[in-house]
């Protein structure tokens, strides 16, 4: 356990290293999530439009 917390502390630089990696992870995920959501929105719109045309 001590070894783990020592590793996480990174010799006093832990906060800098981990916050950088966390921010990067969030931003990169956002860049994939955003177009995925846009695609879903487009498909939903299309489905609604087709249902309207059917009735």
């Amino acid at each position: 356990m001590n070894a783990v917390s020592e590793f996480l502390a990174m010799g006093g630089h832990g906060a800098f290293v981990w916050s950088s990696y966390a921010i990067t992870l969030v931003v990169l995920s956002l860049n994939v999530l955003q177009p995925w959501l846009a695609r879903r929105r487009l498909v939903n719109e299309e489905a609604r439009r087709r249902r309207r045309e059917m009735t």
Partner: protein
Amino acid sequence: MNWSFFHKLGSPKWFFEISGRWLPWFTAAGVLLLLVGSVWGLFFAPQDYQQGNSFRIIYIHVPAAFVAQSCYIMLAVAGIVGLVWRMKLAHVALKCAAPIGAWMTFIALVTGAIWGKPTWGTYWVWDARLTSMLILLFLYFGIIALGQAISNRETSAKATAVLAIVGVVNIPIIKYSVDWWNTLHQPATFKITEKPAMPVEMWLPLLLMVLGFYALFTVSLLMRMRVEILRRENRTRWAREAMEKML
């Protein structure tokens, strides 16, 4: 020279089909490279003898900065192709790549600031490299805003293409800023003509991370472009058929 690939490249239908086949490969490669690269960089790469563990930020800072600049060059090339050959796909690429480039510049700036604190004792200085990267971010913002402000698609494409081309002058300034001005920012880690000054176990994970960032950039770009193309081509038969499959 056979130019048929160039005409194919201009065809949204062809692009939609081929990008659909490429996407899973780029996604797998990107995730794998980033995973291996960051685990290696965080857990196994040796400490820097001067900067200690804070140097591990290099494994995201440098790849993000690389992609941020390459992406801008790509915008300028797409702008030229769009203006000269009126290739619709080039405009789509320009529009879709700009926000990703802005995000990459954001990562480079933020991780750089966080790295600066333990290394230089400050988050920000008006150093030439930092300032020119900030200008890059504003150029991206300008291109995004200009694209959204003009509702006519043709005019908007032309205006953003011109801004992208003009702004490319900033790229060599970023690159040479560490040589031209006596700055706080350290000089380039990688030079094409020389062997890296780092030991292998330090730069190999960096190489993986750079490749991973490029792969993920491609994934995000292809995904955005595919949605944009479907939206623009929604009156054509192939796009309707493609949508049919997605429902």
